[in-house]
């Protein structure tokens, strides 16, 4: 969309902006390019190829789907657990609930490695669980849940939401009817925003996952670390490119859904 500016940017500001942009984008461009050329040490002269991309896909293709599945499951679990929890937090006036809310955000501050270690110590003996996909899901849920609960609980706490609930009660609506029929739709923009955040965090999560994973439950970021550590630089770079190609469109679609909900329900 064309935009005209009535103010002239100062050359100094423009210079700073350009410098920062180049500083941030250059490594990304370099990495993507590295994944598309024959030999990184020789440079572009060695010619372009899709060989590395194919190799990544054959060796690590499963991690891409697993990461997407994990992030999706994590969003579903965070919705099922987080939205009712957010409501309970928003409506409770007890001091203990405030304390609980503080505790809930702890896993964000505590290093993922520590959380993972505790999970392994506690559940490590439960072999079936330990080796399953669900084990990593639990780890991700512990880490991402605060983002869902905080976002949605803030929305539930708005005074007009309390009045909406009273209005539904005055019309005879049971708790179920008003929760699913009135309150959840009214906080939908926050729920979608929370979901987007949970999805994004889960897709990129490395610390926890690296500790929790088994060879059969490897995710994309863990695979990426593995490829950089044990394979050619070109393969690692091609892997990063795969990440962009697969994950960015998903994020864009999610972002679009969030905006759609905001347009529909946002303005009261």
């Amino acid at each position: 969309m064309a935009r005209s500016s009535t103010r002239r940017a100062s050359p100094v500001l423009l210079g700073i902006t350009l410098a920062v942009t180049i500083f941030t984008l250059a490594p990304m461009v370099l990495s993507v390019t590295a994944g598309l050329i024959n030999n990184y040490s020789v440079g572009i002269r060695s010619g372009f190829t899709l060989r590395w991309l194919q190799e990544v896909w054959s060796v690590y293709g499963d991690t891409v789907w697993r990461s997407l599945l994990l992030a999706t499951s994590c969003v579903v679990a965070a919705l099922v657990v987080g939205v009712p929890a957010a409501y309970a937090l928003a409506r409770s006036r007890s001091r203990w609930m405030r304390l609980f809310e503080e505790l809930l955000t702890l896993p964000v501050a505590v290093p993922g490695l520590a959380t993972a270690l505790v999970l392994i110590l506690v559940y490590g003996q439960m072999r079936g669980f330990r080796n399953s996909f669900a084990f990593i899901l639990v780890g991700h849920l512990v880490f991402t849940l605060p983002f869902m609960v905080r976002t949605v609980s803030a929305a539930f706490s708005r005074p007009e939401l309390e009045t909406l609930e009273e209005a539904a009660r005055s019309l005879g609506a049971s708790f179920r009817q008003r929760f699913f029929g009135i309150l959840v739709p009214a906080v939908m923009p926050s729920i979608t925003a929370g979901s987007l955040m949970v999805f994004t965090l889960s897709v990129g999560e490395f610390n926890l996952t690296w500790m929790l994973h088994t060879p059969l439950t490897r995710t994309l970021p863990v695979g990426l670390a593995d490829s950089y550590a044990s394979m050619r630089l070109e393969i690692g770079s091609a892997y990063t490119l795969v990440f962009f190609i697969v994950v960015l469109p998903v994020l864009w679609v999610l972002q679009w859904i969030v905006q759609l909900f905001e347009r529909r329900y946002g303005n009261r």
Partner: protein
Amino acid sequence: METGDFASAADAALPATRPKAMGTGQSTRVDVEECAKTFPDGTRALLPTSLAVEAGEVLALLGPSGCGKTTLLRVIAGLESADPGGRILFGGEDVTARPIETRGIGMVFQHYALFPQMTAAANIGYGLKIRGVPEDERRRRVGELVDLVRLNGLEHKRPAELSGGQRQRVALARAVAVRPRVLLLDEPLTALDAKLKESVRDELAELLRRLHITAIHVTHDQQEALAIADRLAIMQAGRIVGLGDGETLYRTPTHPFVTEFLGRVNRIERDPAARSAGEIRLGDAAWPCPPALSENVAVLVRPEDVRVGPAGTDGARMTVARRVFLGERVQLHLRPAGMPDAATLIAEVDRDHGVRNGDTVGVSIAPERWMPWYEEQA
């Protein structure tokens, strides 16, 4: 009061063959018995209060903010529980223990509380849907209500797309759709701008008469209460200090708060000399005191009861210290002639009254217009 288009629209929606089709069919009396409300932090928002609202009556709970009127309404609605000992009865049935969901009330909220994701029609039909009314009947009834509140053509708009007045009408239609026993209105016009407020107010008053529904209406606006309600309960500091029809309360108030809250009033102190002389004095200005008020230490008179004529006519000689043009009337701040530091008497006269700033005038007050001032009970 003018009924305008509204009456004809309501007539069309309420054919003679189905009288009171929109209301409950039978109005319900409401009794509040010794209801008090103490909040967990110890605040006594409502002192033990009793109140009877006749079937089909529109009662206004009127008072300044923090007087307990909203708390009383919420106790009647079942959104707050009264302190132990208080009872709420609807048509003789004790509903104190009933939650709001089954109390059979309809409620209109201050900011309407319309469901933002639903259309106007879906909002109106929500209560019917909850009650499992079949869809075709629901649609028919929502249609009737849309006609009644004149929302035709706006049924499929969402609240965000409606004006303040239209939202208010959706909120009202939604509340009466379920044929409540009692309609509760919490500051229903406060969110509207001043100009719109007046027309919506008259519509609301007319609609409540047509529905013949028992209604309790909370407001801090005296004009609104006088225009809509059959009776007013004036509240101050958690209790009802005046109860009656608006005109009686206005003309013969029995509590100082009622006098001062309903309209503006001049208060004139009477020292022993004035009392023994049988006069009401403001500086040099003096008026004969009606015998009934001869012992009162202070008396009251409303600005519109102060008659201002040319100097030299009957009455006390006073000077116009300030003339304020208010549109439909003119307010005059009067001081006894030659006493620029004396207390002022406020008078309100017709907008065509020829008096100017600095004029000396004759001020008279009919003996029956003086009202007694009561020492407020502790």
